[in-house]
């Protein structure tokens, strides 16, 4: 506690998992941003004479079957994975929030139909739904992002709808209606700003789901295509060389785990820190 004038309340300590998570996420984000400048080699440069080399001073994570530096590839892959997580979540946020607001605000038949549609979407296992969307067209990173985004729309719709249903009952919305404000004004100026916190929490959860689902789809050959260095794709390619080069699979996998754990810790920490009930409960 700092000396001096008495503080009205003690400063809250940041939860440990928030700090750890933030540090990890920051590191991965920096790797994604600075990757090309930091990496010792271009991610797609062949070193045919150094094929399948074990980790050493030159190639920190070893090399793959074409002699490409695994460390540089993992660095470059962080960009793809983060992009996948954030872009796919953005897709589900944009569609999900709009649909959820509409369902919760207009009720009636729109609500009924939208929620049936969401039930339908949720009736498919996520991987299968993603595969179904990608099954018929040639794979590319953009389509995977879109597919992953679509898979997680229902979750966002449900959260948004339930928050909207609560907010619509509030007096300030009644007041806005009494003033004769338009539906658009009430939705975007009155409801949406108050609905953000739970939606953000849900979305932060979805980022890790999106990264994992995206990696799984890449692993199955339905995402980023060679010579891209998506982590899921790298692990998939490493399968044929497990005998000779374990490092090809292990390092991208470990970094992916670290990233996902970091984002989860950050999310949990944020929730603990922001949620007053948890704070006073002495968690």
């Amino acid at each position, binding site marked *: 506690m700092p000396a001096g004038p008495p503080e009205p309340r003690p400063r809250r300590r940041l939860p440990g998992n928030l700090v750890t998570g933030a540090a990890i996420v920051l590191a991965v984000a920096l790797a994604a941003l600075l990757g090309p400048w930091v990496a010792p080699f271009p991610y797609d440069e062949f070193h045919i004479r150094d094929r399948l080399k074990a980790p050493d001073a030159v190639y920190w994570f070893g090399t793959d079957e074409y002699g490409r530096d695994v460390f540089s590839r993992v660095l470059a892959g962080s960009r793809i994975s983060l992009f996948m997580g954030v872009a796919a979540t953005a897709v589900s946020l944009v569609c999900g929030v709009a649909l959820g607001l509409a369902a919760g605000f207009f009720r009636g038949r729109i609500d009924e139909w939208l929620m049936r549609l969401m039930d*339908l979407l949720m*009736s*498919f*296992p*996520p*991987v*299968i739904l993603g*595969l*179904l969307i*990608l*099954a*018929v067209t040639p794979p590319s990173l953009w389509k995977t992002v879109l597919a992953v985004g679509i898979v997680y729309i229902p979750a966002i719709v449900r959260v948004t709808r339930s928050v909207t249903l609560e907010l619509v009952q509030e007096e300030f919305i009644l007041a806005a209606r009494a003033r004769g404000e338009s539906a658009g004004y009430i939705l975007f100026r009155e409801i949406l700003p108050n609905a953000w916190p739970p939606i953000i929490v849900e979305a932060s959860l979805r980022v*890790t789901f999106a990264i*994992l689902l995206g*990696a*799984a789809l890449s*692993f*199955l*050959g*339905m995402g980023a295509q060679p010579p891209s260095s998506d982590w*899921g794709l790298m*692990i*998939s390619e*490493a*399968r044929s060389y*497990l*005998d000779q080069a*374990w490092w090809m*699979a*292990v390092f991208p*996998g470990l970094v*992916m*785990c670290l990233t*996902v*754990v970091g984002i*989860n810790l950050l999310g949990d920490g944020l929730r603990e820190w922001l949620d007053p009930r948890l704070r006073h409960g002495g968690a």
Partner: protein
Amino acid sequence: MILYTLRRLALIVLLLWVMSVLLFAITQVLPGNVARMILGQFATADAIEAVETRLGLKDPLVVQYGRWFSHILRGDFGQSLIMERPIGPVLAEALGRSAVLAALSFVLVASVGILLGVIAAVRKNRPVDHAVSVFSYLGISVPEFFWGIAFILVFARWLGWLPSGGYSPMGEGFGNWFARLIGPALTLTFTLIAHVSRLTRSSMLETLRSRYVLAARAKGLPERVILFRHALRNALLPTITVLAIDVGWLFGGIVVVETVFAFPGLGRLVAFAIERRDLPLIQATLLVITAIYCLANLAADLLYAALNPRIRYARRTS
């Protein structure tokens, strides 16, 4: 209750029908021509014409859909384009293998998950509790394909205890058959166990705080009886629902896990079909998986209603 079940079943039928329309629509939007896919790139126009007439590809779409759908209702999924075999038997075989895999994983998830949850609840905030929570954190944070690869590396390559994948029929020895099942089953278990153990832990903690547990303690019952006879029975209610939902998840997870371990089940078949763009096979496998997923979800809801007296009575009085 019966009415509710029937309504849910009707919804599932509707859902499967929608799915069948979607899958049929996919074959229509697909660039390229089915006859050309069958005959190869250098087919003559006459040959394509003949195949199209034979397969009825020139009929109106509604007629084509009706024919396809009525075949499926009779259990005839058509020919696989790549394997050039009827899909029905292939699918049944793969489904059988996956069912065994799923059942084994499910038993593991249920037993180990509940046990871990109870241990963590009893030893709350002790090292064991933290170990269990780290363990489950890893389980959900790491994609199943990486666990699969790690498993192969450790147990097949380095320790040499188990084969790295594939399948060997039970007829060729139980040991061989079982050894190839362990890897995929453990991988599936590990990714699903966190749900179960975390939920069991929290509901167990809640029950242990309740008055009847206090009363049982006051009566001087042995701790083991209190835990398993009194507390666990009530704490399991939410866990059971999650378990039933996990059956659906299992059938999503098998696509990846079976690919990693080259286990020739339903999941591998889906991945194969999509990889090779074998349309009839894609349609058949996705339809079957959707059906299983829906039925598992229905089972979850019914089980919950059957086990939870509050829901049961509410429905009876209304």
